[in-house]
């Protein structure tokens, strides 16, 4: 079944009260298709289900946790960022609030420090689908997505290399909060 999901990308800008200059996310309108059958998936913390995009020979799992699926020179990694990590870097906010604030209106030096790392990414876009917010950053053959939702207590970082953007869009079209 071909199902189209219309997505509106919002422009996010910093306010005058921010601790540092915020970053802009492109305003555009895309159509994503979820025509790929999604039978295989990855469930994070029993709350977030993502489609599995590559048929890897090897899955690497480590503390963090980080899950890496690699096939040739392509890979996709999933990294869970929980409250402990956010506290470790110096913020008392929940993962959702830390990233939301950093992406929209950085309020302190830690949020500014994080967003400094994002400034170099050439293409930035924002989507809100199925109650999940996707902050998408592209640089050469690499795409980094931060998945935020008020319904989950973690933030998920998804990084891909050498995976076409339209395939990555499939993640966004088919990821759901359970």
């Amino acid at each position, binding site marked *: 079944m071909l199902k189209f999901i219309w997505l509106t990308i919002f422009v996010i800008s910093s306010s005058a009260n921010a601790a*540092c200059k915020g970053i802009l996310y492109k305003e555009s309108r895309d159509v994503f298709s979820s025509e790929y059958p999604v039978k295989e998936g990855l469930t994070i913390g029993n709350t977030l289900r993502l489609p599995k995009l590559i048929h890897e020979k090897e899955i*690497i799992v*480590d*503390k*963090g946790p*980080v899950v*890496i699926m*690699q096939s040739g020179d392509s*890979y996709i*990694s999933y*990294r869970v*960022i929980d409250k402990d*990590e956010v506290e*470790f*870097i*110096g913020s008392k906010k929940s993962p959702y609030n830390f990233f939301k604030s950093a992406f929209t209106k950085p309020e302190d*030096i*830690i*949020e*500014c*420090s*994080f967003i*400094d*790392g*994002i400034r*170099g990414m050439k293409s930035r876009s924002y989507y809100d689908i199925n109650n999940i917010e996707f902050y998408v950053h592209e640089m050469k053959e690499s795409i*980094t997505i931060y998945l935020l939702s008020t319904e989950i207590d973690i933030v998920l*970082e998804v*990084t891909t290399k050498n995976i076409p953007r339209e395939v990555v869009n499939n993640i966004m079209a088919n990821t759901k909060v359970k």
Partner: protein
Amino acid sequence: MEPITTQEIKDIQGFLAVIYGDQALKWNINLKVLELFGELLKASDSCSRYMDMVPRPFYVGNAIKWVSKQARQAVIRHLKNGGKHYLLCLRGVGVKYKTAIYMASLGV
């Protein structure tokens, strides 16, 4: 490339441990990890108030000459001499680099 000494590996692992916690003490330190660490050091303007970067002779273009032992030593010396607050500040930008550095340490 001049070989990375055991002491340099321990020093870099120690700096990464300040940014990422003790798990970084087990990460393999190779040239790709050093290059990403160099990017991380330069990435945050917000943290630069805590420390000037290493002198320009140790750069090629915009990147630190990690292949040079002299450059590595300059960075290490610089961070050891009062770099603690700088490294703590880099925990923020470190979030963005963690996956890349970890994967580089695995050789992926």
